[in-house]
């Protein structure tokens, strides 16, 4: 077990998998010689060369399409989209092609392509470089989507994505690259679709993923001082989601707050709220609450962006409201 950053854990997972499987290659803008604009792929070009670390033109549609075609032919591509916002540029290839081809091929095809990208606000990158668009991807049958919140999960989920025969999307949060945590040196999997109860608690369940997990834990700490016990669940996978774990917790605490950075309307919080009330209706003492971004593009100025991004105080406030409810 060594202590690695969130970003190095990703890098190590990719490197070790590339060592283990010569069918894996990485394709995207500045992923090779530069090692990725955020350093995600640092060192891999020197180690694996330009055939396996492919620098491309600025062509998101063709980059994803290249991954699809190569995967249909038996390779296991890692397709990097620099910012999650650019998913919208390649949405046809992702949602009309990658997600559907297995089904259209009568189920016969395997499509082991892993899309990696970088999402999230908080860096004053403005409306086209800060979005959390997972709800759109989760609405597309055929895709799997994971959003790790720790270095451990980052490596384990990346390994699982690379071993999965379906198109998978792994979303890193741009504000978490430096977060440190213990990461086993060997290869291991964190199963796609398994949530993680990060903190047990009896009074209320907080469901979060990606960077909102740490904000939720901070809120839980504040509330512990007030004698409130929060159970914090890190979904880790948002497609599929681990309904069982969330519902079991709801039946125990009877109150749920869902937290995400994406805008509230038609966000994943709605899906979780709907599923919880479908499966735990009689157990709920309060409506499932949602803490999410307001319905606006992500603003540039820190003065506005700090109001936009949900944080521990806002989460804590919502938890209190949910608990106050008779």
């Amino acid at each position, binding site marked *: 077990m060594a202590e690695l950053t969130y970003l190095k854990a990703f890098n190590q997972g990719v490197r070790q998998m590339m060592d283990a499987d010569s069918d894996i290659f990485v394709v995207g803008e500045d992923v090779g010689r530069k090692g990725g604009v955020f350093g995600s792929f640092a060192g891999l070009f020197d180690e694996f060369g330009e055939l396996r670390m492919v620098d491309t*033109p600025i062509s998101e549609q063709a980059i994803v399409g290249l991954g699809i075609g190569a995967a*249909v032919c038996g390779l296991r591509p890692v397709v990097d989209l620099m910012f999650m916002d650019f998913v919208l540029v390649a949405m046809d290839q992702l949602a009309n092609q990658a997600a559907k081809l297995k089904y259209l091929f*009568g189920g016969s095809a395997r499509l082991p392509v892993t899309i990696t990208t970088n999402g999230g606000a908080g860096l004053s990158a403005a409306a086209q470089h800060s979005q959390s668009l997972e709800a759109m991807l989760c609405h597309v049958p055929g895709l799997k989507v994971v959003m790790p919140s720790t270095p451990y999960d980052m490596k384990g989920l990346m390994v699982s994505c690379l071993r999965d025969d379906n198109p998978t999307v792994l979303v890193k949060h741009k504000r978490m690259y430096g977060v440190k945590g213990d990461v086993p040196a060997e290869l291991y999997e964190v199963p796609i679709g398994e949530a993680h109860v990060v903190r047990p608690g009896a009074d209320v369940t907080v469901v979060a993923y990606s960077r909102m997990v740490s904000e939720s834990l901070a809120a839980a700490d504040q509330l512990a001082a007030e004698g409130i016990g929060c159970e914090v669940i890190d979904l880790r996978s948002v497609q599929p989601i681990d309904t069982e774990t969330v519902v079991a917790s709801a039946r125990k605490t009877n109150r749920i707050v869902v937290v995400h950075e994406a805008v509230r309307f038609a966000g994943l919080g709605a899906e979780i709220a709907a599923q919880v009330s479908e499966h735990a209706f009689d157990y709920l003492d309060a409506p499932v609450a949602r803490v999410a971004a307001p319905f606006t593009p992500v603003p540039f100025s820190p003065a506005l962006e700090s109001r936009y991004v949900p944080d521990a105080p806002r989460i804590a406030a919502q938890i209190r409201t949910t608990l106050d409810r008779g």
Partner: protein
Amino acid sequence: MTGPSHEVLRDIHRRMVRIRLFEEAAGRISEAGRMPGFIHLYVGQEAVAAGVCTALRDDDQVSSTHRGHGHLVAKGGDLSRMMAELMGKATGYCGGKGGSMHVCDLDLNMLGANGIVGGGVPIAVGAGFANKYRANGAVSVAFFGDGATNIGAFHEAANMAAALQLPVLFVCENNEYGEYTPRYLTMAIDDVVERAPAYGMPGTMVDGMDPVAVFEATTAAAARARAGGGPSFMECKTYRFYNHHGVQTLGMKYRSDDELNQWRAKDPIPRHEDLMVGAGAMTPDGIEAVRAEIAAEVEAAIDFAEQSPLPDPDDLLDGVYSGPADQRQPL
């Protein structure tokens, strides 16, 4: 130069006739209301698919379009499984899940028809990348229409193949229309091949009604690609004899009967048959025999399709995911 061998001429002919008879039959069944959805017939363009695919190896991949029946037949597609798919039967290539716009056969390296104009072009580039990655000497072919060259996915894919020097053939079937809009309204160039230099790709213009010309151009382009010479672009001038979809022929508002009839006079099949007879590659009787044999194959395909069962609704969710279908939800 000496043309292709008699065997190649016969091979090309067989592929064209299989396409023609399959399509005519599909058209009749569709017109009779015995086929769900709508179909885009390939009739008139047979020389392109047949000429290209005869020049390919079995391990060369092709990606196709909404007008994709011809490409699968030319790659050796099973007419029974094709007809069954068009009729939405469980025995079809996609188990009835894809239909006309999605027929495919991965075993034949036919990577699928595609409902999104231009959508299949980047996929062929990915296949080309895999071939280069494995240094297996195979090439991939992207078939697409004239109208598809106006869409971004085509541009990105063509440039990507050139930038990475991938063994990919870009085959444009220029039938001068995108649905009901003539090409001159959608691009300000005379020939689509004028787009090749923008990618630093060699481009050739070919008579798309002459399968031998298509075969020879493909052979040359494929040889260069296999030798590491990178991608190239072929514009095949051709024409669809039927409407954009369905089976209407004459009396269409957006194109004249005269124009259609002029192109029909260039029908690639009789033209190629005359050539074969002249070259002594086949006798008229031999040709008749081939036509009869394929007609029987098509009839058998229709019987197979009609007698095949519909898919079981309970299999609706099969194939959405490989492995445990963990997202299954109750209906």
